[in-house]
């Protein structure tokens, strides 16, 4: 995988205000409040779809981890009260919604002239609670979402 694609994807993600306002790490986990980790995921080459003109439909997948503080307050049935953990989950959901919005307006990372974007999407509609760390101060919830970018790679075409 061309490493510049990773940089271009990071540049793209940093146009999201929620991500830019936190701390984004590449293939590293900084377990702190409002930290994000961008973890590369290798896609099986057998899943690539070649076409007769030499272009290939490929996928670029990565895991996005969000760290949010955890509250140990029990839920109460009180008008106007929103659990802090639920609020933090909503903040992570904003990032998933941002990805869906980019897809709807066809705003994609720029992988170069020979790469035609197909679509970008989150593999789930909601964040996955990956883990809970009660040893850290404050306690942290780790939310995870797999994001996939599909694109048509025209670099190996013979006829252009």
């Amino acid at each position, binding site marked *: 995988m061309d490493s510049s694609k990773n940089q271009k994807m990071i540049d793209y993600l940093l146009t999201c205000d929620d991500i830019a306002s936190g701390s984004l790490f590449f293939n590293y986990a900084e377990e702190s409040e409002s930290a994000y980790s961008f973890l590369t995921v290798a896609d099986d080459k057998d899943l690539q779809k070649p*076409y*007769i003109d030499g272009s290939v439909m490929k996928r670029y997948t990565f895991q996005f981890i969000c760290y949010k503080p955890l509250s140990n307050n029990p839920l109460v049935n009180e008008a106007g009260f929103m659990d802090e953990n639920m609020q933090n989950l909503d903040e992570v959901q904003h990032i998933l919604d941002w990805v869906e919005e980019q897809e709807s307006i066809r705003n994609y990372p720029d992988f170069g002239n020979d790469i035609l974007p197909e679509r970008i999407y989150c593999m789930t509609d909601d964040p996955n609670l990956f883990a809970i760390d009660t040893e850290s101060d404050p306690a942290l919830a780790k939310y995870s979402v797999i994001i996939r970018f599909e694109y048509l790679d025209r670099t190996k075409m013979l*006829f*252009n």
Partner: protein
Amino acid sequence: MALAYNLQTGQRAERKTLITVVEFTPLGSSSTTKELLGTRTEDSSVEYNPDIETTTDILGNNYSDMTKTQPEQSFDPSPIVGGSQFQLWLNDKRRRNALSELSGLTVYIITAFLTDGTATTSDGKYACEKHTDCSVTYDSIGGDTNVNMPFTIHFSNKIKTGTVDKLTADFTFTEDSNI
């Protein structure tokens, strides 16, 4: 024209080395343009549909004669993709049911795995068959996730063999001189 492989011994020809290009007059234009066919098509072949007559003599020997071929090539799927002038042209005919306007196309079959035998591939002489007066039929429109409009090219067999000088839409076709 003497044919030679544009392949090393034992090397298989990749599918992308068999190239079908249609030449047509786009909507709103007075000059022709060439467009590669097969965008996002995973599998497509030129089917020759031969007519074969077989006779058997009194000795039990079979003699088979291929009396004609009616080559055609289907492109399915062929999703509607923005920017394709040919799909725009074809959709115009479909919408108006303009059946008489589906003919008169020039279609090139470039066999980039073959050269004319006298030049290296660095000279860019790829073997090519030019069919004039071909027809196209649109087979359907629809599909599931994206709009798919498969179509079929019906080759005329009015063939001129020759070469093309490059693998871009502005190639020049040079007819074989010894035919």
